[in-house]
Every structure is written in C-alpha cells, then in structure tokens.
C-alpha cells in the first residue's frame, strides 16, 4: 500500500488528507453544497429552457423566416403567401407556413387549460408524426402534446376555444413539448387562421418554417421575400420570457461559480499559510517547486473532485424527487459540464495560494519551531 501510494505524485498530501480528515471533511462539505446548488440550478435552468422552447426545438425545421423587426417573436410577425412564394421556389429548401398563437380552452368539465397552438399546413414537413399529419387532414380538430394526455384528456374530448367560442375535438396526441411555458397543440393552418382571424384570414400566418442544409441562397431570398431568416436556435429568444430567464439563471450560476472559486481559494490559501513551514521543509529536503505544487494541487484536486461529485450526485437524487410542478430537467451533459466548470473554477481559485507556495523560502525550515 505504501509503495503504491509512493509512486503517485502526492506522497505527503494523501497522508495529510487521512490525518486531518476532519478539517478536509468540513471544506469538502462546503464544496459539495456549492456543487449541489450549482447542479440543482443547472437542472432548473435546463427545465426552464425546456419549458420555454421544447415545442419549437422538437419541430424538424432548421430556420425560421419572420417579418422584419419581429425580434424572433411569432406574435409580432405576420406573413402571407407573397412572402412564402420566393422561399418555396428555392431548390433544396423546404418552406412551410406556420401559425403560432396562445389560447385558453375550456374542457367539458369547465376546467380551463392554456394552449400554444401551432397551425400547420396540410402535407407540411412540420407534422411531427404521420398519425398527426393524418389527423390534421380530416375534420378540424386538435392534436395535443402528450402532457395533456397525462392531465386526463382523451381522444374525442371537446375543447372550446375561449373568446372564439369554437369547439374542437381532440384528434390525438403527439410528442411532448411546450412553448413559452405553455404546452403545445397542433391544428391545421386553416383552423388556426379561422381561430385567429375568423373569416378574414387572407392567407395570413406567423412565420415560414424552413428546412435546409445550405444557407447560401438565404440572403437573396430574404430580400425577395421581405423576411428576416434566422436559425432555429436564434428564434428561441422570441419565446416569451426565454431571454430574461436564461440571463437570470446564467447570472445566478455565475455568482455561484465565483463564490465557489472564492471558497476554494480562501481555504487553500489558509491551508497553505498553515503549511508554510512544512512546504519550506519539503524544499529544504530538496523538493522542487513543481514537486511541492504537484503535491498541493493533487490534494486540492482530490478534495475538489470528490466533493463536487458527491454534491452533484445528491443534486441528481433530489432532482428526481422534484414533482412535475417545477420545471426541472437534468441530463448528463449539463451535469458533467457544471461539475467540470466547478472543478476548473475551484482550481483557478487556488492560484493565489499556488503563487504563495512557490515563494516559500526553504530557509524557514532552519528556524526554531517554538
């Protein structure tokens, strides 16, 4: 065991960890709590993002062309066939009109629900599943996201759109998703136009959904169509509250990371000050700066990595207990990302202490201890 440890770079640090485990456990606890908070926040941020744009993200489009000046917002964009025509003529580009509006709908039992209604043209590439496409080509009705099914709605239920007083049957269910924190529903574009404009639709819709791999023709088509084309990801900004929510979450996460760096940096600095004599002694015994740094950073890395992993694991556990009422979503990429960032930031926080280590003069080993 001794020899196994001896081959590692952290001969002294490992044994320090064992002997001073109470001290290190306290610091590890603080780091774990920060990791817990950061991971939980990451889950909430991802959940909020999902809640805001998962409906749009799930659509098989790559770009959206909107009315110029609409700032990615469907509610500020109105286009017509005149805008659609130039896009439809471009080779290698699938273009389809889409209407997006928010409605309240009343169930037969009197309960009111919110709908983010996506009106899709018959035969459009946007219909997420063939069965949804088929449903939308028949009698006017709604294809709802799966969340509504979980809320007890069934095929054949009637929903009355509030304000328009138009009753539509539930035709089926399709992939889950929401837009602007409202679960989505699909209807045919003509049904959407009827709900929004009554009998005065004049072929209007919100935007043009585009599926293309080559963007070289976009600029010219944009001019001809009098539209502003943007990527699907850029269009997320138009989701109600999306920009403010992500900015707030990013700010909180940023603060947590700074706090984490300060905590780790402060601890490591105090620990280094306390170890000054020990570091001087190591150098007096012939240890180079890089040896002492490896030892110290190895120790920090062990505490940091172990505490961060424990914190993140607890966060995942707690996250699984959170009910559906709170938008919370954790997948491996953001967990791994926030964990890695926390470790890197923690190591960065120790830079002051590292500088201190290199400055310790071995001559202090000769001074009397008491």
């Amino acid at each position: 065991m001794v020899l196994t440890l001896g081959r590692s770079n952290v001969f002294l640090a490992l044994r320090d960890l064992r002997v001073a485990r109470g001290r290190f456990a306290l610091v590890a606890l603080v780091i774990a709590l920060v990791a817990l908070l950061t991971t939980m926040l990451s889950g909430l941020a991802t959940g909020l993002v999902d809640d805001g744009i998962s409906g749009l993200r799930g659509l098989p489009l790559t770009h959206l062309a909107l009315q110029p000046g609409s700032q990615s917002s469907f509610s500020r964009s109105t286009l017509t066939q005149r805008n659609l025509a130039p896009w439809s003529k471009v080779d290698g580009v699938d273009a389809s009109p889409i209407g997006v509006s928010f409605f309240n709908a009343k169930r037969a039992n009197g309960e009111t629900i919110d709908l983010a209604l996506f009106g899709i043209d018959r035969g459009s590439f946007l219909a997420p599943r063939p069965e949804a496409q088929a449903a939308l080509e028949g009698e006017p009705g709604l294809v709802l996201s799966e969340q509504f099914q979980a809320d007890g709605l069934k095929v054949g239920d009637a929903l009355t759109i509030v304000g328009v007083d138009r009753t539509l049957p539930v035709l089926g269910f399709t992939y889950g998703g929401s837009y602007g924190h409202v679960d989505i529903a699909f209807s045919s574009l003509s049904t959407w136009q009827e709900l929004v404009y009554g009998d005065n639709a004049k072929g209007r819709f919100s935007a043009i959904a585009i599926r293309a791999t080559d963007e070289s023709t976009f600029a010219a088509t944009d001019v001809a169509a009098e539209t502003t084309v943007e990527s699907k990801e850029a269009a997320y900004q138009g989701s109600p509250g999306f920009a403010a929510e992500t900015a707030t979450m990013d700010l909180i996460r940023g603060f947590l990371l700074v706090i984490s760096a300060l905590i780790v940096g402060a601890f490591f600095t105090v620990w280094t000050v306390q170890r000054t004599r020990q570091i001087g002694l190591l150098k007096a015994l012939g240890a180079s700066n890089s040896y002492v740094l490896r030892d110290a950073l190895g120790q920090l890395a062990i505490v940091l990595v172990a505490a961060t992993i424990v914190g993140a694991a607890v966060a995942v556990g707690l996250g699984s207990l959170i009910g559906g009422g709170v938008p919370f979503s954790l997948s491996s990429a953001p967990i791994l990302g926030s964990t890695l960032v926390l470790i890197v930031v923690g190591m960065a926080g120790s830079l002051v202490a590292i500088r201190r280590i290199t400055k310790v003069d071995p001559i202090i080993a000769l001074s009397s201890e008491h």
Partner: protein
Amino acid sequence: MSLLLDDITITVPDGTETLTILDRLSVRVDAGEVVAVTGPSGSGKSTLLAVAGLLRRPDSGTITMAGVDTTELSAAQLTRLRRDSVGIVFQSSNLFPSLTALQQVQLVAHISGRLNSAATSRAKELLGSVGLGDHLERLPSQLSGGERQRVGIARALMNEPDVLLADEPTASLDPERGHDIMELMTREALDRGVATLIVTHDLDHLDGATRRLHLRSGRAEESTPSATV
C-alpha cells in the same frame, strides 16, 4: 573534499547600517570529518549552516559542494544539488505530522523520484541503525523527542549525502538524550564517510567531533583538533 566554503561574506541591512553576519569566512570539511561549530548567539552559526546547505547564497565567496562550484548554479540546480548531496538534521526534528517514521525517511527517496522496494529497505535499515526498527509505523506524536530526532538523522542519511549538516540537534533534548543523539550522529557520519558540520551551543557533547570551529562575529576564531576539544 566534500564541502568548501571559501571567503564567504554575508551582510544584512540594519537600519541605516550594514551588519556583517559572516565575514570572509572559509571552512573546509572533508569526507569522514565531523566539524563542530560553536559560538555565542549572533555569531553566524545558523547563517553558516544555511549557506553550507545551499539555502542561502552568500554576498561574496564561493561554495564548492561535492566538487561542484555552486556560484553560477540556478535556484533549481541548487535545489537538485541539495537533494542529491546534502542531508540536514534540524533543531527540533521537523518531522511531518502525518507521516510515520518509515514514511518520513521514504519521503526523501520520493522527492528524488527513486522510491522503490530497495529504497524502502534502505529506509528500514537506517531506522534500524538509529534504534527505531520497532517504531516504523509510529507517527511523530507517538514518538519521544529523542526518537523524533533519530528519525531526523535517518532521514538526513537517506539520500547518501556527501555532506551532513546538523542545526542544534540536541537543543530540545535533555542532556542524556542529547549526548546519545550526538554520539549516534557522529558515529553514523564517521562510519559512512560523510563530511559533517554540526552547529551546537552545547560544549558537553563534542567528544565525537574531529574538529571544532568557534565563531565570533562571523569569523572563525579558532580551529581545534578534537583531542583538545
């Protein structure tokens, strides 16, 4: 010749004045020699040890360690030379609280990147030779003051140094233990042919020294064969 300090001067600022700590001091210690350095407080004993241990550069003069002129060496090169050629026994043993007696000695090999089973055997042999063969797994807190100092001696000898330096090695011990430690150190140094420089204020424990160097105001006042010490 293992250690040659030639014409060493060290000064420090003292208010508006300059204080001379070592004043053109020359000391030569050959392999197998044990030189005891005595002198009153402030005579430059500790500074002499720091210079000899390559822990401090002199303002002028040259240090030749194991045949290497250290004048032009970089800080990293001095550290490597100290690692490979110098063993230091500190005043109050200076052990690492989290390491067992065996690990204290193994650490020296680890710093050199040479910790293997042969090094571990040597560490055990050294601890055995200082009478701690049964205390290998004890932490410093489980050892007496004399035992801790013995671990310090074993550690200083681990890298097979050309030069052994000791800084008041008996200062924290009672007279009987102090005598034992001094005797052990001089015996080990003589047996292993190491050039040894022991700084001490304790004139009662100089029996094993082959020479005595008395410092006063940074100058060597006398150099006496051991028989007359």
